[in-house]
């Protein structure tokens, strides 16, 4: 009898010991917040995933010892994503950023199983109690560079290398067109769709084609620096996408529209630390610094740069809205009346070209 008692005693002690250990480790975990990131591309893509990783590095710099970040790159959208997100959630990450549209459903599925973990999904539209969404108003940046194009184009033709005909891309084309025509009403925008986010060869072919057809400024909504490189070689202007692409076109790149996720990542991490995190939908632009413009090319005329800066400032302080009426579509029909601005619903579902874009949207 007494033997069994001793045994129970030992067992109790062991259980207590384990409990203490668990307590210690959980205290330790509370000190160090684990934040996970899932990227769709390699961090070396010099575009989308690269910028998300810059945000992660900024997070580490901001909080130092208080956070531990993990990232997984080149995760295909689909079943693999669910596995990777689950693994991050299981291994003690309390905040997980999933940074591509196609991670939407996997993120929600995993979030259901880990109600205590907070999830942040980029560019999606489905939310849950522990899932927020966030995206950037890139079109604000495009509206700024559109002014530069209006000032600088001599041929009156702008070339746009586009990926897929989704509202996000069409919004960018329209923002550029509206801005450029404000300066020079004769401007026309030619669009070439390459039906790919990433194909350096095809992107460069498209840029060459547009330049051959008279475009003297090249815009792109694809991810490789190839169009900027072509512009450099042909001696025309270009605008970088997602990252600063000046290395590929030191003379050609007027500026680049940079995705700056760092402030958002820092703010959301802080919210988790403070316990104030709430599911939300964020769509930020120039004002909070989510969309930034790379340093303007030194070869640009001073008045053009001054104009661009004043437009960026106007967007930041709210005095300028890129989609302020009157806006006419290609048929000349007024879609946004004078004195009004397009609301977020209209922006999010934009499926028409404004006046000045050549051709029609592929259906």
């Amino acid at each position, binding site marked *: 009898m007494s033997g069994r008692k001793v045994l129970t005693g030992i067992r109790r002690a062991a259980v207590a010991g384990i409990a203490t250990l668990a307590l210690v480790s959980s205290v330790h975990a509370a000190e160090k917040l684990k934040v996970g990131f899932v990227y769709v*591309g*390699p961090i*070396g*893509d*010099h575009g989308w995933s690269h910028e998300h990783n810059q945000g992660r590095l900024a997070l580490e710099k901001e909080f130092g010892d208080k956070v531990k970040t993990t990232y997984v790159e*080149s995760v295909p959208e689909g079943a693999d994503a669910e596995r990777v997100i689950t693994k991050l959630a299981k291994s003690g990450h309390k905040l997980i950023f999933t940074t591509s549209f196609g991670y939407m459903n996997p993120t929600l599925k995993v979030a259901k199983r880990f109600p205590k973990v907070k999830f942040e999904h980029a560019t999606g539209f489905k939310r849950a109690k522990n899932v927020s969404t966030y995206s950037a108003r890139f079109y604000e940046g495009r509206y700024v560079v559109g002014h530069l194009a209006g000032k600088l184009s001599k041929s009156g033709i702008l*070339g746009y290398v586009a990926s897929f*005909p989704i509202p996000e891309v069409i919004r960018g084309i329209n923002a550029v067109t509206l801005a450029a025509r404000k300066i020079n009403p004769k401007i026309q925008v*030619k*669009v*070439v*769709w*390459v*039906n*790919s986010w*990433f*194909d*350096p*060869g*095809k*992107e*460069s*072919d*498209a840029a*060459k*084609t*547009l330049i*051959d*057809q*008279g475009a003297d400024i090249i815009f792109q909504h694809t991810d*490789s*620096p*190839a169009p900027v*490189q072509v512009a450099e*070689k042909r001696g025309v202007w270009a605008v970088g996408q997602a990252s600063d692409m000046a*290395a*590929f076109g030191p003379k050609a790149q007027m500026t680049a529209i940079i995705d700056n996720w760092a402030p958002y990542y820092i703010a959301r991490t802080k919210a988790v630390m403070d316990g104030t995190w709430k599911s939300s939908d964020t769509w930020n632009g120039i004002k909070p610094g989510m969309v930034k413009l790379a340093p303007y090319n030194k070869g640009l005329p001073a008045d053009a740069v001054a104009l661009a800066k004043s437009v960026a400032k106007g967007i930041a302080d709210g005095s300028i809205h890129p989609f302020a009426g009157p806006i006419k579509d290609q048929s000349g029909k007024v879609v946004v009346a004078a004195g009004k601005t397009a609301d977020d619903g209209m922006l999010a579902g934009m499926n028409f070209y404004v006046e000045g874009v*050549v*051709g*029609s949207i*592929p*259906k």
Partner: protein
Amino acid sequence: MDGSDILVSAILTIITAATPLAFAALGELVVEKSGVLNLGVEGMMIVGAVMAFATGVTTDSAILAIVVGAISGAIVASIFGFLVLIMMSNQVATGLALTIFGLGLSALMGHGFVGMTFSGLPQLSIPFVSEIPIVGPIIFGQDGMVYLSVFCAFAIAWFLAKSRAGLILRAVGESHDAAHAIGYSVIRIRFLAILFGGAMAGLGGAYLSLAYTPLWVENMTAGRGWIALALVVFAAWKPWRAFFGAYLFGGITIIQLHIQGFGVAVPSQLLSMLPYLVTIIVLVFISRGSVRQRLSAPGSLGKSFYAAS
């Protein structure tokens, strides 16, 4: 820009788009003529691309970069050769694995080279001759690799049709058992063909990263290896047809971009599909032709060779 300028410029763009395909397709054609199906073209191309770019950036020598591109393509191909010829592995599965391996390996090797640029290949410039309107820039204003691709088409066509070695290679591809019985080393001949195919794919990749878009980004071949594979079938295993097939494919790709730029109301998805569609249509017409045409595939294509049988 007036009409002739656009024309010249479009033709120059077509040449750039066609050259990497021509290299890879011609190389694969020789491999298949020897009776081996190597589906790893994409993988060999991308390794050639990254190695050529890395060499070009570090040494600043275009010629060295091109050579390294070809050699590294051949090295990757030698893995394939060892597996399918010596270890008797399945050619289709091994080729697919080679593509996946090449994409991963190139990403690893190219890690430090993202964001760098290469000055591009020097272009031929003969005083006065290169300045002749239209003909000058097209015929006398290309970079060395374009001329090399034309030379390769000539050389391979001659080799397969006229040379004794080419005849032996074809014999091995048509019936490896018969060739073996006569006393030819099937394994050795096939291995050399595979190395050559790898080197050509490497050259195609080198052209991508040195001239087409002189930069390195992961996965920059974007499926061109697969197009090269399709071109070989499209060409009914005839070198000149493969070469012109590459130009046809490149041509339609560029023309559809021009159609879009002019604002013609044709869905761009349809236009993007056009090069593939035309390839399939031509393929259908070819295979409807005479029996000889249809039987132009090498008899032993894709079959493993056992010396014992």
